[in-house]
């Protein structure tokens, strides 16, 4: 923030155009430059179009998807998987995190297992989930849950451990019972940690959904990519990636808005 302000000041002295505007122009120029480079290199066949696609074809494919409306169904499926994975994963993690943080026995007993499961590359569970839950959305949700769970779990665990002892003593002096302590001190404090890991965990749920789709599915953007790859249609693969990136950016912006609403009490 400070840095940006400093730039603004210097910019206005140098040229009269604000530095942020200049930065935006340069960012746009960089984008156009890279796309042009891609275009020229593939058009002149320096890079084989078979492997690298063509920007215009990719663009056409994206536009086509939106005009025909074909993409909306697939985007919807991916989004539903993401949201379900996030909600189920973080709820489970919230409950487990609270439980483990408040019960030393439970935490001591399961510590090595938690560490082992966390260390395991969990994407490898996808085939098992496909077997268990089929090719529908639930195998993707399950993968998303395993990814989201640990991000949120460790945050909640840490959050509960770091509840100020003074705030706790104060609540006890004000007459809180054990249950009330959980509801009015531990839970709000833990929830705030869930929200502070929101960007990471929503991202994880998205990864779970797309990877799950890519490994076997009947719908979703990952499925579109998988289909296109099957027929060596590299332009469509790129188009899928572009759509996924846009969706991820929009999702992240939405999360930012939600976060701001929910963490109003936090100092900026």
């Amino acid at each position, binding site marked *: 923030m400070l840095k940006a302000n400093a730039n603004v000041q210097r910019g206005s002295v140098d040229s009269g155009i604000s530095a942020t505007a200049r930065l935006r122009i340069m960012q746009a120029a960089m984008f156009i430059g890279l796309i042009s480079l891609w275009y020229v290199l593939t058009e002149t066949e320096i890079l084989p179009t078979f492997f690298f696609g063509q920007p215009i074809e990719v663009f056409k494919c994206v536009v086509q998807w939106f005009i025909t409306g074909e993409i909306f169904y697939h985007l919807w499926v991916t989004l539903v998987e993401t949201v379900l994975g996030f909600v189920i994963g973080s709820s489970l993690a919230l409950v487990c995190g609270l439980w483990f943080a408040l019960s030393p026995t439970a935490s001591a007993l399961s510590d090595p297992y938690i560490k082992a499961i966390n260390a395991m590359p969990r994407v490898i569970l996808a085939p098992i989930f496909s077997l268990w839950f089929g090719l529908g959305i639930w195998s993707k949700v399950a993968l998303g849950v395993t990814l989201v769970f640990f991000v949120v779990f460790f945050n909640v665990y840490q959050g509960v451990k770091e509840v100020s002892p*003074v705030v706790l*003593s*104060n*609540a*006890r*002096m004000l*007459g809180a019972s054990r249950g009330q302590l959980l509801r009015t*001190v531990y839970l709000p404090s833990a929830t*705030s940690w869930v929200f502070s890991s929101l960007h990471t965990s929503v991202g994880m749920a998205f990864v779970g959904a797309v990877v799950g789709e890519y490994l076997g599915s009947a719908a979703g953007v990952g499925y579109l990519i998988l289909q296109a790859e099957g027929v060596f249609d590299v332009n469509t693969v790129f188009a899928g990636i572009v759509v996924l990136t846009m969706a991820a950016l929009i999702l992240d912006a939405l999360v930012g808005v939600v976060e701001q609403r929910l963490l109003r009490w*936090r100092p900026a």
Partner: protein
Amino acid sequence: MADAIAIQSAPAIAFKGITCCFPKATGKRRAGAEVYTAVKDVSLEIREGEFVSVVGPTGCGKSTLLNVAAGLIAPTSGTAEIFGAPLRGGINRDAGYMFQAESLMAWRTALQNVMVGLEYRGVSAAEARERAISWLAKVGLAGFEDRYPHQLSGGMRKRVSLAQMLVLDPRIVLLDEPFSALDAQTRVLMENELLGLWAANQKSVLFITHDLEEAISMSDRVVVLSAGPAAHPIAEFEIDLPRPRDVSEIRLTEQFLKLHHEIWSVMKEEVLKGYAQSKR
């Protein structure tokens, strides 16, 4: 009638031979080896409606004593009696406690913070709200109900803490250097306000501070604690300054200076001892 007298004569707080030991925080854990005795054999009474200050060098176990009275820690030996009934493992329900450190719930607004104790007691939301609003007004925070703690100044947060405690109308008030983090001006304001509130509704107050001037200007009685470990009361002074008092004006009176000199001469040695220990 006899009953009434008996109840009145039971002290609000009576420490009877309180000793508190803690395992020492040394790296190696040898069973039962290192024990730190914070306070040793403390006997002290706070009468109903009395304002008592405990002063002593930093780290002498003043807060330990307060935590015993609050029921937050159990003494290793001895008993604490509250209005004649011994406190056995559990929170002192008659007491309100104001902490030195920040104790407000950051995720609740000022109003919700003041309401929380009433919520715990099952008071209806509407009534709790009404009472909390009136207490916020009493501590001079009308119009700040919907602010979160981080949007308030240090002094304002202390006022919220004060309202949070007093809205429950406790018979005993425990204060652990509540104003030590405030700047000098705010501090005097808060001290006067506290005295005003206390005068309006004489509660029994146990006030912990390391600031002798604060102790004298506010209390009926000042107890000096020795330097730790094994701190214990070494002297007691009745403060017979007239009330109502203005804490900033009373500090200039001759009587105050005389008392200050008297108490300081006792305290000085302990402070030096405490200082030497903290350097080791």
